[in-house]
């Protein structure tokens, strides 16, 4: 008899387990575990991304003193002044023109180079290295290099023009040419990265697809149009997004080559923000511009994703 008692007790215990409670506990456990794993990124993003973002939004509603402390609450006044300022209009126009000059050109050149470099030829490694080499050059070094190229008297470009008897051009001092000159520099600098990413995309396309097309009798451009471009679309999409964001955020080469001049023709928005904040010490208006830039990039990215999702083929 004494043996049967614990048996009965334990079976009663078995019935009394509250499954809902146990499940809740387990869920709480997995949640805490997940949060622990997320903690490093949350801390990093919080300090260096989310906090500055909200601080910038806050600042954009105030006037500040030279030390960046808020003085007067002005509401939307910063924004209103900005949108009525002709300098800001010029800056926006330059920025959009700059994006228009750089993004398509960079991608088309990088794609052509990548398609060529993807061929299996002798010594192709050398060309791949050359084509991607600009990735390893810092913005400052590249800008200085181009500064000499654009030099009005001793610059390489004007020397060539001289050879053909054309009058020399003030690449960086003529408002007509300055934005174009900066755009060329930027294209050259971005080419390495874009090329490398696109080449990687090309190499991940299954070679069987091309062999099958060869047997079917497809020509070179037919294969390019029907296989390469569609199969590369996720990579192209990524590259376009990144290049557009980069173009909107251009700063280094402007600072070294033109400092926003001549006549504000290269005063791109990030440079304008920098000037407002650290030359004029107007942290309030600078913050307002930064928020506008953030909104533009956000909208552009959303549009791209909306369009991209329909066109891009993911495997």
């Amino acid at each position, binding site marked *: 008899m004494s043996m049967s008692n614990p048996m009965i007790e334990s079976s009663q215990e078995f019935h009394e387990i509250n499954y809902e409670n146990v499940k809740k506990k387990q869920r709480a456990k997995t949640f805490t575990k997940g949060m622990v794993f997320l903690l490093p990124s949350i801390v990093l993003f919080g300090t260096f991304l989310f906090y500055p973002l909200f601080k910038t939004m806050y600042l954009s509603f105030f006037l500040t003193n030279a030390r960046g402390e808020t003085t007067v609450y002005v509401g939307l006044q910063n924004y209103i002044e900005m949108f009525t300022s002709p300098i800001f209009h010029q800056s926006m126009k330059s920025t959009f023109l700059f994006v228009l000059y750089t993004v398509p050109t960079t991608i088309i050149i990088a794609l052509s180079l990548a398609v060529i470099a993807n061929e299996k030829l002798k010594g192709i490694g050398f060309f791949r290295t050359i084509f991607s080499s600009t990735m390893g050059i810092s913005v400052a070094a590249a800008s200085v290099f181009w500064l000499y190229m654009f030099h009005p008297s001793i610059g390489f470009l004007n020397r060539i023009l001289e050879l053909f008897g054309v009058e020399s051009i003030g690449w960086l001092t003529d408002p007509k040419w300055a934005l174009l000159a900066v755009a060329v520099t930027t294209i050259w600098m971005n080419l390495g990265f874009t090329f490398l990413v696109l080449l990687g995309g090309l190499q991940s396309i*299954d070679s*069987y*697809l091309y*062999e*099958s*097309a*060869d*047997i*079917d*009798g*497809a*020509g070179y451009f*037919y294969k390019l149009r*029907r*296989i390469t471009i*569609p*199969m590369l*679309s996720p990579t192209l999409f990524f590259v376009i997004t990144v290049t557009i964001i980069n173009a909107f955020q251009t700063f280094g080469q402007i600072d070294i080559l033109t400092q926003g001049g001549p006549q504000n023709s290269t005063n791109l928005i990030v440079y304008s923000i920098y000037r407002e904040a650290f030359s004029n010490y107007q942290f309030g208006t600078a913050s307002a511009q930064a928020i506008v830039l953030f909104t533009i990039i956000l909208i552009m990215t959303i549009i791209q994703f909306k369009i991209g999702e329909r066109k891009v*083929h993911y*495997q």
Partner: protein
Amino acid sequence: MGYIELMDISKSYNKQSNVLNGIDLQIEEGEFFVLVGPSGSGKSTLLRMIAGLEEISGGTLKINEKVVNHLPPKDRNLSMVFQNYALYPHLTVEQNILFGLHAKKVDKQVQKKRLEETAKMMGLSELLNRKPRELSGGQRQRVALARAVVSEAPLCLMDEPLSNLDAKLRANMRIEIRRLQKKLGLTMVYVTHDQVEAMTMGDRIMVLNDGIIQQVGEPIELYNKPANLFVATFIGSPKMNLGKAKIKNDQLIIEDALTIPFEKMDVPESIQNRKLVIGLRAEHMPHGNETQQVQHVEIVNVEHLGNETLVSFEIGTELWTAKWLGQWLIQVGDRVPVHISVENMCFFDAETGDLIKAAAFTRKQEVVLR
């Protein structure tokens, strides 16, 4: 004159050691020809050379009596099915099937007609608007086949097309491909590493190892008269049982463990006084009864296949397997009588591995069947 002729074909990468050596072969029109061999034997390379995807290092390749060494794949008038199907993931089934016709700018009406015919034949009519990722493995395989069929090329090359399918589907597709080939009268060159596929599908089989032809022949011929030890062990499942043997005083001694008496009349002079390897098919070692020549062996493993039973036992250092019809309730460790006789044995030269004499019994069986 064969439809495809390979004359002394060889392949080497970087001008170093040859991957393929002196391949001489003729494939007839309308024939289902199987290239079989272990991985790395060069069979896929050979197929890709016929297709024109791989350059031919030496020798002459003729298709339809024309030398095609220098021609690109599209001018060789052939179709090919790849192991991973090579379907374009961004195109629908219809676009996939029509890719080749579209590239060749075939007339729209003709395209439509051929698409309808092919889709109906392959049972794809319902799936034309789907993308490859929305298809099952078997359906993808069918699309790949449809692409080959729609091109109406007289020669079709297949590179291990069934290796991504599960066993049941594979058995189905074997039959389907075979029927399709017969129906359309295609000349088929089919590469596989699976000897079962080779045996069941091929009109003729070529066994390739290390870039050298081991044997070319009909499936039954390869099974009954393997030209050497490689073919003997490669073709047939379970594989042929082998054992080192020598002849001494009217007795055949196998692996120093089995002694089988035989009459000199049974074997020709040529195999006496030589180092031998004998081969014995699993089904040629039946359960022994009193009237026969019987060896008693200890069972080390039993596999029940339903209507057949595989029993394994050790002969010296070799593990032999016998296949018995019916269900035998035997335990591991039992000692059972096995009938092992000289007339069922293939004799190979121990040094070169070449066949000296094929089994006499199988020849009898062949006669009975005919």
